[in-house]
């Protein structure tokens, strides 16, 4: 029982990290109506950036975010402007291929510079732990969770308390209408993509401390993140956050109760079950297309 409880607590804490990564992904979908298949690769890229700063300059991984988040933000804006904005016809399909290609390119570059050996970022807080009841929790999970909570909070503040956030929400609701009322949708899209990348950088750091990773790790990650945002309902931030927490708790409990090798499988089982009952996801609105 203690094991299950421990798994549940760990699930919530890691779920926070997935919530952050997934909210970047669902934000990008909401604003641009594209699926960024490269999101996992960008998280891994974030992990490598922090890894380099930590290994070569001994910068604490959490502190390195001060550098990596702005860098990834700018990279995101560039990627959007160069590769996504030019897509005029058949955007939905082509953007999947473009972002997939970006993922392959990043995987290849990382493989070229770092080989495919597994790496992990280490710090004192990834071994030190403190007791809660019958079990101990490593500090990094708490720090990671708090970091993600802070960033998610900042995103929500930005969305609901600033004019620019209003423009983002308007674009998410209806792209054409937003354009009609004078919102620069291209600019909003570029910045939203940048924000998505910045969250990927933050997620990447925590992922890089709590997991070993190599350039190919993005495949597993992106299939989880995509499953989460489908479950939460495409374009729903709240849905993505709740789905991330629920999924990670279920996964961690499965790992304890059944077996770790089957833990990832529950993602698919739940995805199938949810789609059978609610094809639009848990929180998604049923989209009536052009009727």
């Amino acid at each position, binding site marked *: 029982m203690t094991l299950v409880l421990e798994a549940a607590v760990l699930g919530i804490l890691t779920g926070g990290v997935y919530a952050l990564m997934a909210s970047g992904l669902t934000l990008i979908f909401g604003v641009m109506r594209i699926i960024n298949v490269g999101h996992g690769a960008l998280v891994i890229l974030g992990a490598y950036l922090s890894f380099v700063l930590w290994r070569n300059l001994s910068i604490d991984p959490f502190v390195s975010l001060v550098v990596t988040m702005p860098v990834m933000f700018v990279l995101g804006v560039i990627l959007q402007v160069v590769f996504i904005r*030019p897509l005029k016809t058949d955007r*939905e399909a082509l953007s999947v*291929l473009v972002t997939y290609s970006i993922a*392959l390119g990043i995987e290849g*570059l990382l*493989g070229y510079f770092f080989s495919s050996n597994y790496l992990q970022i280490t710090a004192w807080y990834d071994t030190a732990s403190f007791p809660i009841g019958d079990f101990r929790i490593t500090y990094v999970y708490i720090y990671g969770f708090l970091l993600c909570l802070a960033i998610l909070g900042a995103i929500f503040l930005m969305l609901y308390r600033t004019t620019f956030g209003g423009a983002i929400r308007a674009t998410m609701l209806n792209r054409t209408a937003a354009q009609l009322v004078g919102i620069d949708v291209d600019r909003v899209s570029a910045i939203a993509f940048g924000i998505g990348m910045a969250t990927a950088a933050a997620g990447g750091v925590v992922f890089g401390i709590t997991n070993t990773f190599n350039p190919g790790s993005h*495949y597993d990650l992106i299939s989880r993140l995509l499953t989460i945002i489908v479950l939460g309902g495409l374009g729903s931030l709240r849905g993505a956050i709740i789905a991330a927490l629920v999924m990670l708790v279920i996964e961690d409990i499965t790992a304890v109760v059944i077996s770790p090798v089957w833990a990832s*499988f529950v993602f698919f089982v739940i995805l199938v079950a949810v789609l059978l009952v609610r*094809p639009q996801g848990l929180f998604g609105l049923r989209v009536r297309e052009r009727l």
Partner: protein
Amino acid sequence: MNRLRDKRVLMAVGLVAVLTLTLVLPAISPESATTNMAVFTLMYVGLATAWNIMGGYTGYISLGHAGFFGFGAYALGLLLARLSIAGGYAPFLFVPVAGLLTGLMAAGVGWFALRTRAATFVIVTIAFMFMLQLLAENLTSLTGGGAGLGFPNPPWRGDFFNIPFYYAMLALAVLGLAVSWSIRRSKFGLGLLAIRDDEDKALAVGVPARAFKLTAFVISATLVGMIGSVYGYYVTFIYPQFVVDPLIGISMVLMVFLGGLGTLWGPVLGAVILEPAQLWLAYNYGASRLYLVLYSAVFLLVILLMPRGIIPSVRDLIAERRASAPAARAGAAP
């Protein structure tokens, strides 16, 4: 209308010429390096053509077709092992069975995946592929897990080794093209194109969209499963991450986009251009993984410079030339 007949005759002659050339290719150039490249190119001609039936005609992009590819390979491998079939020509007889099993599984996956519209469908296919990979790794007692699954050894040696596989892949590519061609000309195919253009409108004129989509998905997956099974026998030892390989899945998609989405010959053209290029890159840069970077650069260039693919772009160019030809058919104007 003579012009139309001329065009048809020209097409038929060209087709016969290409087919003859592919039939005798191993006799012209029997070295295994060439035939190996030919086996893989034909494999992708088949894969891209099969993918196009779902992604091109119906407009539902599947990034999980590598799952069907791998499933077909495992299905054949397990069948051969269970039935103790020895290496030789006999395993080829079981290829349709592997295809049928793949089709059955696709029917199951499609049953729920096609409840969703395009955006969610893409995601479900990706998730499906990785779950299949996971299953292949975890069901150790069945698949051998990460240790891999062996096929019976093909008895052929030297330059002849590739030849049976060459003809098997050729047969499947021709089968795929025949299926694709007959779908394109049928009322069913027209229904698929209608779904791609406007699914609700298609429903309003009686197209049973769900049954049509599912059928296209199953046909597409069955072809891919058969090709995967031949691939498995060709490489004789398969591992989860190399046979349920996302790169195979994305490659067939990009070939279709390069050649021309939803056209009959686009996938063929895309495969004939990209697969040799991919093999060349893997051969020269494979060790450094730089080939992935180059490959992705090729993709990005293709998508940005020619988003509609070669065949539609060229077709438009020709139409434009014709239209601007001065007073060519002024008398025929209505």
